[in-house]
């Protein structure tokens, strides 16, 4: 597993989720801290494409060997794509949380929410 990292091009939610914003869509995942706290991820329970997510609310579940945890949406919108690859390789959430471990792509419903997210430095500060 790689060392702790919090890429500066991402924005973060205090519940240990990240968003990579591209115009009016964003890709979501969980942070290095979250995957490390979970331990080995063994199952990702994805939402359905077309369903709505709300900022700060759970949209999926991720399971490690011993525990199940909710995954919280950093922003609101409609799910337009799900990382189906995690069905076979949920360990990508541990191995590459900002890359192959991405979870969903969302069409944002309120771009104004973006201002409420943390940058990498501010998020890291919440961890210390």
């Amino acid at each position, binding site marked *: 597993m790689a060392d702790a990292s919090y890429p500066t091009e991402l924005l973060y939610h205090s519940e240990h989720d990240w968003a990579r914003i591209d115009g009016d869509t964003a890709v979501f995942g969980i942070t290095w801290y*979250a995957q490390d*706290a979970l*331990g*080995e991820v063994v199952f990702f*329970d994805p939402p359905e494409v077309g369903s709505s997510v709300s900022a700060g609310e759970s949209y999926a579940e991720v*399971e490690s*060997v*011993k525990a199940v945890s909710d995954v919280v949406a950093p922003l609101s919108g409609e799910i337009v794509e799900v990382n189906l690859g995690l069905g076979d390789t949920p360990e990508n959430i541990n191995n590459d949380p900002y890359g192959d471990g991405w979870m969903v792509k969302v069409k944002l419903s309120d771009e104004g929410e973006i201002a409420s997210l943390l940058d990498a430095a501010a998020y890291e500060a919440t961890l210390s």
Partner: protein
Amino acid sequence: MSAASIDTALKRTPLYDRHVAAGAKLVPFAGWEMPVQYEGVKQEHLATRATAGVFDVSHMGEIATSGPDAEAFLQRILSNDLTKLQTGGAQYSVLCREDGGVIDDLFTYRLGADAFLTVTNAANHEKDFAWFAKQAEGFDVTVEDVADQYAMLAVQGPQAREIVGAFSDGPLPDRFTCRHKMLRGKNVLVCGTGYTGEDGVELLIDPADAPMVWDEVVRRGAVPAGLAARDTLRLEVGYHLYGNDLMEERGPIEAGLGWAVKEDTGFIGSEAVRAVREAGPSEKLVAFTMASGIARQGNAIVGGGEVTSGTMSPSLEIGIGMAYVPSEKATEGTELEIDVRGRVRSATVAKKPLYKK
């Protein structure tokens, strides 16, 4: 996702420093600060199946029973037939209340004609000892809480015997037997028992000697493995975990432990257990495999029943578990629907052990 704070009142095993040095994640467990994992659960699990794992199970308790009535006394409180237990033998049994509810499940080792050692679950140790002491009245027997006198290591896996045998004075005891051996000059009770479905040994050791034995087995290739791997290993082979699959509110027949229960011995609870066996239990503990996802302890079975243990099987790479279900749903191949946090998922009742070599 915050880290659990460790209560300073928690007990530590003699191997605490070894666990810290090995990078263990330590968690509170039954009043002890125990390693839940080191490098990773999956790796520790698979290493135990492939080569050998070493588990610190010093949190488990021990009760020594001795004296002229020792056999008669244990026959009165343990469900199995103690008179069948030879010196140097090991026997699994349950401790029942009068109504047949399971107080604990235990291994008893016969060390001599009138001397026995019983290993208790950590969380139940005080309760068990109080029960032993209470029931001992009227018997010419000495019951001692000797938990502080023993550290306990489990070395499990296909290479476990070779690893321990390499620094032992001669051959190790066979399965379900125990013998005092000298391990590098230290007297250790070596038992051919375990909780992983693998061959291996459990070592009852003077706490002062435990670090030496730990170092030897690790140096010879046993992988330090934590409580999380111990749990996934036992669940794959369908062994019960007290507090999950066994409890005072249910009896041994429902739990599928009828093989360890001999009502004719007249143990406390035997009449209640006999009634359940004769009438047939209304529910039974079954093992299951999931079509997808993972059911967890407490998840409800649609139509009645509940999951008592559930995890992802590192060997099978599917969700597995155990559940109490109505008896008519207990046959192998029965499809179950489990409410996993609001989503209904399919599972199939499967034969134990779920994992076979």
